């Protein structure tokens, strides 16, 4: 390569590198150093301490937050992808109904977070929510259920709303992947004697493995980063029963000004996410490899 070409190449990628350093690497580095800094009342008091992590370990709420976050991320991802796969499989069927549904299903996805959260908050309200009232009036339950007030229930209610909001795009992506499965493979499987379940298991699933992996990883990242939905619906309550990493980090930093502890949690959050995604990619490395070599 000519010398001037090389300079041009560097010059051309410079803006992107600068942007990534400024907006991704920089803040990450900042949070990482902050997590090792003692902060009292918003004032930095000395770098090079594991005090923030020790404080977290001693915090009884943090254990609860970890449990809730596990339900939120793992439960959310598993349900989002499995429900999305089921809906996507249904939408992949050719009919006029599914043609309309394919367009309509994106509706939850285009609503803003705040609208979704407020609407569901009212529908699930303990006294005046339409869902509780309907259940009571049809005689399915004795009284109204306090969906958001029950510590055992609230986390799962959040997951349900999360699925409602995030599943449509997953379903649509998987629907597209299923429709791209070559017809002749499905027909060959029919000739080979495969029933509908076997055709799904042995032909459709392997063919959409790449999309399924990608959509799982993306869902997990979306759900981990989702803040507005739980914050507006419960604010972490009642009594931290729906406190997850995202909301607890926000509370610690912007309500209690414990920036050190909040940064430590962010670092833990990032490490968890990276390791889960890395594990998932490792397990599914074959589908990526085979896709790449086509």
């Amino acid at each position, binding site marked *: 390569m000519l010398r001037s070409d090389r300079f041009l190449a560097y010059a051309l990628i410079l803006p992107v590198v600068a942007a990534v350093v400024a907006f991704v690497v920089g803040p990450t580095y900042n949070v990482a150093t902050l997590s090792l800094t003692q902060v009292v009342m918003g004032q930095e008091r000395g770098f090079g301490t594991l005090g923030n992590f020790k404080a977290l370990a001693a915090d009884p709420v943090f254990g609860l937050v970890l449990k809730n976050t596990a339900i939120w991320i793992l439960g959310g991802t598993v349900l989002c992808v499995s429900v999305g796969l089921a809906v996507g499989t249904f939408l992949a069927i050719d009919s006029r109904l599914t043609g309309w549904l394919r367009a309509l299903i994106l509706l939850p996805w285009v609503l803003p977070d705040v609208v979704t959260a407020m609407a569901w908050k009212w529908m699930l309200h303990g006294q005046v929510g339409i869902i509780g009232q309907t259940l009571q009036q049809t005689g399915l339950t004795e009284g109204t259920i306090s969906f958001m007030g029950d510590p055992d229930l609230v986390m799962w209610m959040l997951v349900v709303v999360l699925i409602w909001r995030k599943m449509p795009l997953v379903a649509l992506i998987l629907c597209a992947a299923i429709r791209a499965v070559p017809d002749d*493979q499905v027909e*060959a*499987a029919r*000739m080979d*004697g495969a029933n509908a379940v076997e055709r799904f298991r042995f*032909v459709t699933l*392997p*063919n959409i493995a790449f999309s399924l992996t990608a959509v799982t990883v993306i869902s997990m990242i979306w759900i981990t980063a989702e803040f507005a939905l739980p914050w507006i619906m419960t604010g972490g309550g009642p009594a931290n029963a729906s406190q997850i990493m995202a909301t607890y980090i926000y509370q610690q930093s912007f309500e209690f000004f414990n920036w050190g502890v909040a940064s430590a949690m962010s670092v833990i959050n990032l490490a968890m996410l990276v390791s889960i995604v890395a594990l998932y990619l490792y397990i599914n490395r074959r589908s990526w490899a*085979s896709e790449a070599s*086509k």
Partner: protein
Amino acid sequence: MGSVALRNIRKSYGAVEVLHGIDLDIQDGEFTVLVGPSGCGKSTLLRSIAGLETISGGDIAIDDAVINTLVPKDRDIAMVFQNYALYPHMTVAKNMGFSLRLARQSQAEIDRKVKAAAEILDLTALLDRYPRQLSGGQRQRVAMGRAIVRDPKVFLFDEPLSNLDAKLRVQMRSEIKELHQRLKTTTIYVTHDQIEAMTMADKIVVMRGGHVEQIGTPLELYDTPASVFVAGFIGSPSMNFVAASAEGGMLRIASGEVLGPVTGDVSSGREVIAGFRPEDIRLSDTGIGARVALIEPTGAETQLTLRTGDASIIMTTRDRITQSVGDTVHFSVPADKLHCFDAASELSLTNRTRPQ
């Protein structure tokens, strides 16, 4: 055993009927080729036999048992698809053994049958490969292997060679024919290529617009085509057709020259289409005058394009040609090589017993 009988098969998509009552008898062990231009319904007919399409009317019977409503897997039929349709995530061995695995056969049994089929098809060394690591011809053989391991009553081939390059196509053509001679399984083969049909078939079914145009052995179709369509479709280069009228037992073409005697029962003054094959034309001192428009030598034989009036006549000859472009020549056609078709219905008027 594997005789196939089709009785008045009809197939409609909504209001559009694409198969208009097909009748066909295929004997056990016969290699039958369905041939016709695209859109003639040959693939639809094959897929109906396979059970991938439901027919709108008629009966499909295998060994006299009607199978109209059976799902594909219960019909005991194997199919080879145009695009091979191999499962990309399975090795060659897994691809070939998939149907046996679904049928819950023991692994030892599956291994034995896959190995046997692989030996027939020369695939033994490739059993652990994935389809993406194979060439087109190898994939085609795996697709055939997948059909062979099931030992079905009937093999169906849906244009299996159309994705291969010309040289490989000729090679696979003989491989499939040899395979059939070895296994003697009833085979129905769909193609749009008349050369494939001629070289492989015991029996050719020429289809057009959802109808059967003619059924016969390759040479029956070649020697006694039932219509202009079959005459033009079978044979390459295709038959020459010229408008002619019957006058006093002779065929007179537009220029007024006489082509030869009328073959068959044609009344005087009737408008007909005269047909004759390029290889049956002889250059002679007398006969119809024409100008040489094009000379295309291929080595073994030479193809000449002759112009007479506004008609273009193709002739092929194995003789070395001394004429050059622009020369005037005379040609004639032996009386027993002339075909006569009705000008309106385009059906053959020639009732000739086939030469032995």
